């Protein structure tokens, strides 16, 4: 005898539940957390390296590094002055349980900001909530100006867009207007920071945004 059982359950529900627990934990500790996503080589780790020395004047920083293999990125974050933990994700994205594991390893009582560096990928990370407060996408000029059109889900799902490697604009064919038009159609009014981790141009505005977001979070009773 066969019986049809109605289920109607969201498949990512288990992840979403852990993400909510992560968020509650961060809020309780008054920690501002952000999820950095990008394709490989866009400059996630470089942006962290650039930002940490400026942010560490005011905040105690932790970094959760998702990496397919090696602890190179975590080492770079540690060298730049953050408490860092490495999660060898062996996956195409971080999920909420992995971030929970990272939070377990960090000394949350003594942190103000946690930066989660996701696995380099423009598809999978968009499907998995982590519990962080802000999602940040780092695009980079050499990737090409068509990326918003090709990865709409990723571009729609973020609150902040960093455009890295603007120092290369004179050398590659990247139509900033076309790029921004694609971004605007997907995510109107998204906060955007064009910058160069190499030259340092634009870094200050980005760091100021992180600092403001963190102050707002920490100040909340």
């Amino acid at each position, binding site marked *: *005898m066969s019986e049809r*059982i*109605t*289920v*109607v359950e969201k*498949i990512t529900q288990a992840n979403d539940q852990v993400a909510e627990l992560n968020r509650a934990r961060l809020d309780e500790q008054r920690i501002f957390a952000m999820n950095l996503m990008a394709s490989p080589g866009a400059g996630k780790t470089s942006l962290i390296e650039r930002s940490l020395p400026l942010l560490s004047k005011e905040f105690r920083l932790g970094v959760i590094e998702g990496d397919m293999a090696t602890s190179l990125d975590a080492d770079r974050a540690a060298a730049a002055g953050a408490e860092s933990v490495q999660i060898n994700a062996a996956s195409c994205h971080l999920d909420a349980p992995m971030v929970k594991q990272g939070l377990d390893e960090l000394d949350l009582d003594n942190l103000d900001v946690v930066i989660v560096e996701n696995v380099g990928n423009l*598809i999978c990370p968009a499907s998995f909530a982590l519990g962080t407060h802000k999602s940040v996408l780092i695009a980079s000029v050499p990737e090409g100006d068509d990326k918003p059109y090709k990865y709409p889900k990723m571009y*729609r799902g973020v609150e902040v867009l960093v455009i890295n490697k603007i120092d290369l604009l004179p050398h590659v064919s990247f139509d900033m207007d076309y790029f921004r038009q694609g971004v605007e159609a997907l995510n*109107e009014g998204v906060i955007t920071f064009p910058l160069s981790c190499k030259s340092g141009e634009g870094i200050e505005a980005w760091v100021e945004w992180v600092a403001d977001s963190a102050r707002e979070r920490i100040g909340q009773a």
Partner: protein
Amino acid sequence: MHELPITQNVLEIALRHAEEAGGGKITNIYLVVGRLSAVVDKSVQFYWDIISEDTPAQGARLHFRHTPIQLECLDCGTFFEPEEMTYICTACGGIHIRVAGGDELCLEAIDVEQEEAAPAESGSKHP
């Protein structure tokens, strides 16, 4: 590649519901996969064949119901299905778009075959 954890979740949810309904062999699994959810059927099937082995769901058939992308223009109120993956209203050209459908990823139902020779008919625990 994110299909592996997704498939694991499918298995977990299916086994849990079968268990709650009194156990038995799961024969069919009905999934709703929106066109926007970036989930590849073949990839789910590939992982399914491996991870369902030696579970009550081994050999269950996966059914994929694909839901189209539905966008709503917040400027003129038109609902439309984009031909290409552009978020621009086909009626007024507006760019204030809300995703109204197509990002679903859900396990809708399962078929469970009860073990035969149930001495005390336990009735229908689930409608």
